[in-house]
């Protein structure tokens, strides 16, 4: 059995931060539909987005055997290689995200260039978010990755993490805390009609993620030899991290807290302890999820 | 990496300067001279140069590819018709590249400055010149001779070529010592006992594998080790297509894994299987009638438990069949053998039947596994006797010998021995051979065989006398002898010890002077005789690269240097003798150590390369052509030549060995006693006439079952260059080619049932303890091991030798454990052989 793991935690960090950047950008777009009161939220999100992706890329570059050759990926490409697509998708996305952030900060993001950048950026964000998953799922050699659930798991996790980081930053940096009114709106929604409800968004995303994860695990458990072997390997070697970190801390507890927060307008405000703690849990759990899947997925099943 | 065609002459000039100080080593390869000063940046294509690999005792003819003076690759010599067809060679040969260029090699002669000797003592070696070293050695010889005790010098021979005639043969005699002690008893002598006392052949057999229809392998593993590894691997696919293969071995070797039958015998019970198989063959009337003979009236009287009147049987080419039956075989049923050997009776019957039905193309292949046991002499005879029953001896598809090797001897040393030398040579050899309990009956003569491992006891007990000085070359008895700790004590006691070696081995750590040896594949002159595939061959070790360091050829250059020094100091006999060996082509007298080496080689091989001397086999136009080709092949074996007279006392293939009877009786007479007494002191159970026939003996084991629950089994590695390769990276990286073993580790293989009881899993660190020693290693749980046994490969557990072989060289920490520290120093005394098989010791396991 070859248990050499070529992609280590630096790759996890790249995928995680990249995912945060994607999630943050999509949050910024989504919140734009709900009006000016979310301006602050959107600024945070728009700035975090390219910063997170670039930080992730830095880790990736230094994970390369030949970091100085990173730039060659721009002019040497391979149409079949998902990683090659990723080069252009991430490059495009970073540029668009930077432009969008500038526009948002200057409050020019609604019309003209802003509209174009918004749509293009959104497309690239989804592209990058899916790319992370496809990077893994395009490997027939990796039984845990080579299926349709994996890109969904990664994409949804990215969106969750992106939102969580934005919420966390907003909660932690006093200048960015929204007013009590907007906070209540952001959290509780309901009476204000089209207000953006963080808890509801989280509940939907967390539910989808939990379902997908369990569907994935079940399919692996009842799958072919390789799938069964790899899943057993994951549970044997990363069992605690997986159940405790990825599932309970990263998905179940946040779901419970979000449901509670939905019902209690005060507790469920952005900036409240509950939502901040939930955001931290999502971030921790999201990282552990990606790390475990990455590590356990690279173990080759004995071929003979 | 930039490649520059560095002029290799630069390096060789440097070594040449150092070499010139002690006698001048002439570069063998003039071609190198062409390169000096050239600006050519191209990569050289290189050249394949012939030499010999001595990684195991197959002794293959090989070629080395030399590029810019560097050895880059090894392959078989395509001119070989025996072993190395199409340039094939086994994995060991490749490892030699990492040996010759090993940074842990000794560069220069060195001298010990710490007078205390011991495993944990730092010898505090300092480099000295060849001249200083040889001078001190010469002085020691002169001192011994002055005191009329030159016999207190011992020459220990390890891995050799046939130029041993100089250092091992002539030199000690000229000094005045009878003590040329070889290592042969550490390996094959018990096996040769089996074939000698049946068909009068004291030697390794060859086998006509291409024609055989059945092969029984007694502990032999031809795909991994001795004695025709590349040939066996080459033909084994065909052999298995055409023949059935049965392997008798307590562990699942590779040959056993591929065989039709695996008989995982309880260690030491091989004699039960052999006698039972003979019983089956006789009771079922399956013996080869034309070879052995038959009942006069054709009625088979071999029935279990019933004696037979010898008069009713007319023997043809064998002798003593009925007496053998009466004395031993009549009660040796497969059912009885099943109880003893742990092999189902139906399998014993099936193998015996199918073996005999394939007669005469059926081989019973004996190896050290079945013979190197305390009571293994008779098991060896029994296993080999099966060949007699099927008539495969000296026959097509059977077990054969070699052709005549057309070499000639060097001149006699007699005329050059002075009175001191003559007197010294009269002493009894120091290894106690021929003592009452060490008959060492090589070739029928009491005390003719070496008892290598006894040398340690001889030194410690000063019995027969004190040993004051020793030279050992290419040996490492402190590692390779059972009861290794005795050797440490013996070497601590030995006042002056010179070791000629390539690496800082365990034995070197006890030396007073260490001399760096030329590597036998790359850096020396020599020749060997071997055989396979019905072809006998002679191949030449040649210097294919400039030596890496300031080394000398052990067997010829070093004695020359000593001789020169002795002559300077007034004792000229040795040098006079050496100078009498002239170049057969030019008649020139040797003027330096290299020329001497060359002339000895040329002289001994002259019948081969000299067109003026008529010989069979390959023909050469002269010395130069022979050097270029590197190997002489004989004509294919002439079968059935021995049938008219095997050479035994009766001239027949002896089931009742008159030959052995004569040898034992003579030995008994020498000690004023009888054969029964000899049997007693040599630890055999047989009494009376049983001593003259192959028979079953109960295994002799050290340790009682209660305290030491497991029988210890050891085996060889297909990567061992006789335990010298453990310092090679590739050895460690590929160690798991030995079934059940692990990379970069030294494991004791344990059956899952036993492991479960002990609470052990693979990877646990354990200690193995025998009544005489203990080692530490790693546990490996594996099914290819008989429950009740622990199986461990030999070759690791070095606490010196180099930085890979040892776990920590500076701290003397071994990697794994040396089996010889567990094994007691016991012997198959009739042959003098050391014992390492037959489950000679029991062990217990402790988890660390």
């Amino acid at each position: 059995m070859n248990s050499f793991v070529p992609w280590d935690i630096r790759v996890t960090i790249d995928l995680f931060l990249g995912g945060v950047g994607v999630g943050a950008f999509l949050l910024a777009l989504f919140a734009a539909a709900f009006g000016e009161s979310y301006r602050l939220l959107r600024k945070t999100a728009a700035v975090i987005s390219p910063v997170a992706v670039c930080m992730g890329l830095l880790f990736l570059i230094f994970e390369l055997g030949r970091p100085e050759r990173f730039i060659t990926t721009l002019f040497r490409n391979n149409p079949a290689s998902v990683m090659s697509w990723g080069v252009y998708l991430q490059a495009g996305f970073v540029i668009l995200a930077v432009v969008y952030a500038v526009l948002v900060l200057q409050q020019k993001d609604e019309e003209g260039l802003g509209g174009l950048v918004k749509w293009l950026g959104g497309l690239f964000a989804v592209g990058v978010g899916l790319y992370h998953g496809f990077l893994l799922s395009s490997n027939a050699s990796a039984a845990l990755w080579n299926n349709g659930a994996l890109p969904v798991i990664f994409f949804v996790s990215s969106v969750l993490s992106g939102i969580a980081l934005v919420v966390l930053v907003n909660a932690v940096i006093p200048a960015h805390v929204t007013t009590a009114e907007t906070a209540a709106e952001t959290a509780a929604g309901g009476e204000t009609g089209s207000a953006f409800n963080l808890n509801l968004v989280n509940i939907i995303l967390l539910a989808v993620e939990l379902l997908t994860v369990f569907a994935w695990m079940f399919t692996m458990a009842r799958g072919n030899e390789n799938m069964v072997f790899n899943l057993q390997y994951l549970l044997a070697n990363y069992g605690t991290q997986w159940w405790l970190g990825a599932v309970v801390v990263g998905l179940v507890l946040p779901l419970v807290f979000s449901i509670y927060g939905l019902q209690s307008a005060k507790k469920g405000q952005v900036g409240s302890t509950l939502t901040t703690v939930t955001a931290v849990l999502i971030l921790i759990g999201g990282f552990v999820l990606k790390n475990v899947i990455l590590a356990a997925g690279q173990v080759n099943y004995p071929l003979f | 990496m930039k490649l520059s065609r560095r002029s290799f002459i630069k390096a060789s000039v440097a070594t040449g300067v150092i070499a010139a100080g002690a006698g001048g080593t002439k570069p063998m390869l003039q071609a190198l001279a062409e390169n000096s000063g050239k600006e050519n940046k191209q990569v050289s294509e290189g050249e394949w140069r012939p030499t010999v690999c001595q990684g195991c005792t197959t002794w293959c003819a090989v070629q080395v590819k030399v590029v810019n003076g560097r050895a880059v690759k090894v392959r078989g010599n395509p001119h070989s018709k025996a072993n190395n067809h199409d340039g094939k060679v086994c994995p060991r040969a490749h490892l030699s590249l990492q040996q010759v260029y090993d940074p842990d090699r000794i560069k220069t002669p060195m001298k010990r400055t710490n007078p205390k000797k011991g495993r944990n003592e730092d010898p505090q070696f300092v480099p000295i010149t060849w001249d200083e070293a040889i001078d001190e050695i010469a002085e020691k010889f002169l001192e011994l001779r002055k005191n009329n005790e030159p016999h207190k010098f011992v020459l220990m021979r390890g891995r050799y070529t046939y130029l041993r005639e100089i250092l091992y043969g002539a030199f000690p005699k000229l000094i005045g010592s009878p003590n040329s002690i070889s290592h042969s008893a550490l390996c094959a002598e018990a096996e040769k006992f089996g074939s000698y006392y049946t068909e009068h052949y004291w030697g390794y057999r060859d086998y006509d594998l291409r024609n055989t229809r059945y092969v029984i392998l007694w502990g032999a593993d031809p795909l991994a080790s001795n004695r025709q590894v590349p040939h066996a691997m080459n033909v084994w696919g065909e052999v298995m297509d055409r023949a059935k293969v049965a392997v008798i071995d307590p562990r699942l070797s590779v040959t056993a894994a591929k065989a039709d039958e695996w008989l995982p015998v309880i260690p030491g019970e091989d004699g039960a299987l052999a006698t039972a198989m003979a019983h089956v063959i006789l009771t079922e009337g399956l013996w080869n009638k034309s070879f052995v003979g038959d009942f006069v009236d054709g009625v088979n009287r071999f029935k279990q438990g019933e004696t037979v009147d010898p008069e009713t049987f007319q023997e043809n080419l064998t002798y003593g069949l009925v007496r053998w039956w009466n004395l031993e075989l009549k009660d040796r049923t497969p059912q009885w053998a099943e109880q003893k050997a742990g092999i189902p009776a139906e399998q014993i019957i099936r193998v015996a039947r199918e073996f005999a039905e394939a007669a005469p193309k059926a081989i019973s292949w004996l190896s050290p596994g079945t013979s190197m046991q305390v009571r293994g002499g008779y098991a060896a005879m029994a296993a080999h006797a099966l060949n007699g029953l099927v008539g495969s001896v000296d026959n097509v598809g059977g077990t054969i010998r070699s052709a005549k090797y057309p070499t000639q001897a060097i001149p006699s040393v007699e005329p050059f021995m002075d009175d001191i030398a003559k007197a010294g040579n009269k002493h009894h050899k120091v290894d106690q051979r021929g003592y009452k309990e060490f008959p060492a009956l090589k070739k029928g003569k009491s005390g003719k065989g070496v008892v290598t491992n006894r040398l340690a006891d001889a030194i410690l007990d000063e019995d027969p006398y004190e040993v004051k000085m020793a030279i050992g070359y290419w040996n490492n008895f402190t590692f390779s002898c059972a009861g290794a700790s005795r050797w440490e004590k013996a070497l601590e006691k030995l006042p002056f010890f010179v070791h000629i070696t390539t690496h800082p081995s365990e034995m070197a750590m006890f030396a007073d002077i260490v001399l760096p040896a030329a590597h036998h594949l790359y850096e020396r002159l020599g020749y060997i005789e071997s055989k396979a595939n019905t072809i006998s061959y002679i191949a030449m070790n040649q210097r294919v690269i400039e030596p890496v360091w300031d080394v000398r050829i052990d067997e010829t250059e070093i004695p020359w240097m000593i001789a020169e020094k002795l002559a300077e100091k007034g004792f000229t006999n040795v040098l006079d003798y050496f100078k009498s060996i002239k170049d057969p082509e030019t008649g020139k007298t040797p003027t330096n150590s290299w020329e001497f080496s060359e002339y000895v080689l040329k002289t001994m091989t002259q019948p081969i390369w000299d067109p003026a001397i008529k010989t069979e086999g390959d023909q050469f136009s002269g010395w130069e052509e022979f050097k270029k080709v590197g190997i002489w092949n004989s004509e294919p074996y002439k079968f059935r030549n021995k049938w008219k007279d095997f050479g035994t006392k009766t001239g027949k293939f002896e089931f009742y060995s008159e030959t052995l009877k004569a040898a034992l009786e003579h030995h008994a007479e020498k000690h004023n006693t009888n054969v029964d007494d000899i049997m007693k002191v040599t630890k055999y159970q047989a009494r009376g006439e049983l001593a003259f026939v192959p028979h079953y003996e109960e295994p002799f084991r050290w340790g009682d079952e209660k305290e030491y629950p497991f029988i210890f089994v050891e085996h060889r590695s297909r990567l061992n260059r006789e335990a010298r390769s453990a310092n090679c990276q590739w050895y460690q990286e590929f160690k798991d080619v030995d079934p059940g073993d692990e990379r970069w580790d030294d494991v004791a293989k344990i059956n899952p049932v036993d492991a479960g009881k002990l609470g052990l899993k693979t990877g646990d660190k354990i200690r193995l303890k025998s009544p005489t020693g203990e080692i530490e290693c790693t546990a490996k749980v594996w099914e290819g091991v008989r429950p009740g046994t622990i199986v461990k490969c030999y070759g690791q557990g070095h606490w010196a030798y180099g930085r890979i072989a040892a776990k920590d060289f500076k701290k003397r920490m071994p990697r794994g454990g040396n089996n010889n520290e567990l094994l007691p120093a016991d012997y198959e005394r009739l042959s003098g052989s050391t014992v390492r098989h037959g489950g000679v010791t029991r062990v217990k396991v402790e988890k660390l």
Partner: protein
Amino acid sequence: MPNYAMVIDLHKCAGCGACAIACKNENNVPEGIYWANYIHRTRGKFPNVRYEFIPTLCNHCEEAPCVKACPVGAMHKDENGLTLHDPSKCIGCKACVVADPYGVIYFNEEKPHEFWYDKEEAIEKITSSGQEMGKNYDVPFPYYNPDRAKTYAGVRPKGVVEKCTMCDHRIKEGKVPYCVYSCPSGARVFGDLDDPNSEVNKLLNQYSYFRLGENFGTKPKVFYIREF
């Protein structure tokens, strides 16, 4: 254009590892990396034990996942059906290592052949060091094989991957790969799948065969016939 493949006859294979060692020699492969390797397995319970051994190497797949994964085209197929690597383009991202189901691609995490740069001596002034040996011969290490450099880096640098190239440098000169050459039992046969008269095709027509990881869709070209 030829489509090179290899057939390995497990009946002839003696499990000796000479192929794997010889490959290390031919291609100057560093410690810890294996271009040619093997898998062994032991099944059953004593005394009914079956030990099997199969030699492995890069399968030079027709649908090579490593080639598909490489973002810069360093891993590529050549016109002879071989999967080759260009160390001058390789960025060391290891996507190929991840994509490869056979585990035959290795990454040079450290500078290779560190043993030959090491200054340690077993016994000072008496024995040598890896570094001294390397310096004496002005090549990366004393038994360095320059033939490898004819078509590929003689020794690959830190930070790039490496794997079996089916000895493309030998094939160019009409020789067989060194593992094939060095196999003492003649178990390995190299040849062109597109040549109906080649030895490989004769064997594949004569015997039933299996390949490793057929379910991965790689269309590997190392075929195993008969049994160990």
